[in-house]
């Protein structure tokens, strides 16, 4: 079982990078979604006030 640690570390780091990247995209998307909802609400408010 020589070098099992190297194989294990390589897979952990590789999968970790994919996971972190996916997480960072999901986090950025959630932030944008919240911002979008806030702005849409503001847009609707200003449209109502305009009427």
């Amino acid at each position: 079982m020589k070098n099992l640690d190297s194989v294990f570390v390589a897979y952990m780091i590789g999968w970790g990078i994919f996971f972190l990247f996916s997480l960072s995209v999901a986090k950025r998307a959630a932030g944008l979604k919240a911002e979008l909802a806030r702005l849409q609400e503001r847009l609707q408010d200003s449209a109502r006030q305009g009427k």
Partner: protein
Amino acid sequence: MAKTGVYTFLVCALMCGAAYAAFFRAPDEATMHLVQRIFYLHAPSGMTSLAAFLVSFIGSVTYILTRKPKWDWLAVSAAEVGLAFCTVVLITGPIWAKPAWGVWWAWDARLTSTLVLWMLYVAFLILRTMIEDSDRRALVSAFFGVFAFLDVPLVYGSIWWWRMQHPQPVVFTSTGLDPTMRKVFNLSWLSLTCLMALLIRQRYELESSREELRTIEQELEAN
């Protein structure tokens, strides 16, 4: 949304299957033994990163020709995903090289050109943060994306053109791999290609939401 969830689940299942096959189904390699199993993550990640950079190149060229923002979104999404895969290649390579070659790194043509490729796409992403105007940013980064892609054929061809430290190709040759090793390799490659498609799609949707946000901001300013 449910469709994306099913696809994400399938990609995770494929990746787990590929890892299981790499650890428990692939035969032991005669000279390197256990450490050779890094190959099933390292080589498919490298090939997938080149595929992502090709998608980015297509996005850049099409943006230059059509000036439609969706191609710029594709270019940046694929570049970011390709960079993630290229990072995996540059980290798993030295972890494999140390027990196999006795050194972490060698200034071999394949290794050096891959490092240059990684730096070029990091520069591509940094460049995008430095330009405010979205049309100008898209055009400048599209030209830079075309330039960065010039290194991809060099990375691919380096092991065919120069015989140095990195092993000769085994994937696109008829005799290079044991049939079971080839099956495991193909499964790993498939799983990472599906992951690449999923990540590019997620990243593309992010760019699309950004555009929606800009449109609403402009509408609010106009009001």
